[in-house]
């Protein structure tokens, strides 16, 4: 489909199907290919901003097993190149969440506190080091999801722990999405929420596939092996 780029966002926003009320409420309402096609309606400068979001997701700190230092280096690189406040908010919150989870895992593994600092005199890093032995680093007020995450993590329920993180992000971006209607910010908020639904559903699909294979193997034993 050939489309003419336009600064107006009415057509693009109206062409995007509604996302489910909850991130775990169903499948993604629009495929990645169709979404990419719709985004061709954007002007080149706006397309650059959405490309940054897409790029961030494609090489998200959580998606790769990077060290904290690598995550922080990438954070600074992205913050330097991002002009949109919403994209910066996305990078900031995701990086903080990633570092917090990394600190949490270190704590549970009985390791020493992390040495990273996101910025000079970083209050979060300071708080974590100072309250290393306090449950959830005394961050319950600022990061309420951490307590729920810890409960699931300690119980070995990784899907539940992942759900807590996704839920927190979903609620944050749903609030942001409510502030905008036919603007670039509305498009960014849509993309971020779409990505959450996509990740959750694909994760479930993967888990479902694994469960199915286990079930087949349990039932058929050696006959389950491919011929």
């Amino acid at each position, binding site marked *: 489909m050939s489309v003419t780029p336009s600064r107006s966002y009415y057509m693009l926003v*109206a062409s995007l199907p509604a996302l489910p009320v909850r991130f775990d409420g169903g499948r993604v309402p629009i495929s990645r290919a169709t979404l990419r096609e719709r985004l061709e309606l954007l002007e080149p400068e706006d397309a650059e901003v959405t490309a940054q979001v897409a790029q961030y997701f494609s090489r998200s700190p959580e998606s790769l097993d990077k060290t904290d230092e690598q995550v922080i280096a990438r954070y600074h690189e992205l913050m330097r190149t991002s002009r949109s406040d919403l994209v910066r908010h996305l990078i900031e919150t995701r990086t903080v969440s990633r570092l917090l989870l990394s600190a949490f895992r270190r704590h549970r593994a009985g390791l020493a506190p992390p040495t990273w600092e996101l910025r000079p005199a970083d209050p979060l890093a300071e708080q974590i080091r100072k309250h290393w032995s306090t449950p959830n680093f005394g961050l319950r007020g600022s990061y309420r999801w951490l307590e729920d995450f810890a409960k699931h993590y300690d119980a070995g329920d990784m899907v539940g722990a992942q759900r807590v993180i996704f839920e927190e992000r979903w609620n944050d971006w749903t609030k942001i999405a409510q502030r905008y209607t036919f603007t670039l910010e509305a498009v960014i908020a849509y993309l971020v929420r779409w990505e959450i639904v996509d990740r959750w559903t694909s994760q479930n699909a993967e888990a479902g596939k694994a469960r199915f294979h286990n079930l087949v193997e349990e039932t058929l034993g050696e006959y389950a092996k491919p011929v």
Partner: protein
Amino acid sequence: MGDTFWLMLGWAGIYAPLFLGALGSIFGCSAAGQAACGAMLDVESGYGRLVGLSALPSSQTIYGIVVMLTLNRQVTIETAPGLFAIGVLSGVALLYSAWFQGKCCASAIHATKNKPEIFGLSAAPAAIVEGFAVFAFIFALIVAAGLPAGGAG
């Protein structure tokens, strides 16, 4: 700056309701029309009512034409200030009502695309904005009746 300036303002006042009303309709219909086109990419039926909703802000141009015809008379130094004031102020009201009605229509189209059953209700904000345009229109006509006739139009 003498009589010519005031006469020019008088003429501007006569044409202003149509000019500003049409400008508002352009903005409003454009916004709602684009939303309708976007929505049509995502729905399989009900295209007609989406396009119909996007045409709602065109009524302000019609109101502008009527006010312009009512104001149309010989422009003199006595009639010019009144023509300017009524024409421009009613025109500004028509412009904004059409423009923002277009935004209401775009939102209604977006909402009704996902929930067709709320079509009527979602158009209510646009209808309310239309009501304000009607006020501006009616009272422009009433106030214009008090202007000096200024001879044949």
